[in-house]
């Protein structure tokens, strides 16, 4: 098992798990989100090829009001 952090919330995952598998489990809202891991942007095309590692900080952002 590995421990990762999704928007600062602790999550346990099987090792290995790729980002696409983790997202399928967490069910984020539709297509309307973008991801960064450890402060580095991960393009959607790379989700399946991105293996998560113990301690990864995953940032999942959605559209929000802004000025």
């Amino acid at each position, binding site marked *: 098992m590995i421990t990762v952090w999704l*928007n600062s919330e602790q999550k346990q995952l099987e090792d290995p798990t790729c980002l696409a598998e983790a997202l399928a489990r967490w069910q*984020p*809202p*539709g297509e*309307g*989100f*973008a*991801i*960064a891991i450890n*402060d*580095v*942007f991960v*393009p*959607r095309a790379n989700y399946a090829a991105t293996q998560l590692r113990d301690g990864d900080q995953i*940032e*999942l*952002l*959605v*559209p*929000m*009001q*802004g*000025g």
Partner: protein
Amino acid sequence: MWQLADQSLESRLLIGSALYPSPSIMQDAIRASGAGVVTLSLRRQNPSAGGGNDFWALLRELDLHLLPNTAGCHSVKEAITTAQMARELFDTRWIKLEVIGDEYNLQPDPFGLLEATRELISQGFEVLPYCTDDLVLCEKLVDAGCRILMPWGAPIGTGKGLINPYALNTLRQRMPDITLIVDAGIGAPSHAAQALEMGYDGVLLNTAVAQASDPVAMARAFKHAVSAGRLAYEAGVMPARDMAQPSTPVLGTPFWKP
């Protein structure tokens, strides 16, 4: 029509999507403003803060050009990553680049802003930097490749209007070929008109409309103010004078005695 980067726009008003009393008032106010560009942001999903897919659906119904921001970023790294995420999520290369240097008045960090600008332009972004009205900073942003600059009128959300007209006017005079938009600090339609009269290409505002007692009516007021300001600029505002000069002809003044 005027040109903002590679887009032709009718309105010179750019409007924000935050702080409205309700999503439907946001939609109505943005429509009433006539703005062709709307700003938005990215955040962690938080049902109590709105946003997410419902907000996204409402905004898409408006069918406007999207200008995502990097609000809240205090470092170059955060701003660059947020811009990259915004580009994918909103399918636009436009970014309103904010790198905040001071938490108290949300003043842009000129050094971080310039560094982030250089990197994002090298990655193909159209960077619209939220900057101070410092001439040298603005020149360096242009040297970095910015075609558009967005100096503040006053700190975000203060509604104080154009607190340094001299500096803003200097920018306009020294940068006749750069698209200049006053971003932040606009409180009243007269402030927006003043910026346009000065020759600014547009204004970007949010709080002044969203926090008005009647945001939809205020949006209409800003729409007219921006049009009036631009028309006045094109018509040529008379130069100010120190001494009075009568407007009524002196010739034939009654009761005149030599």
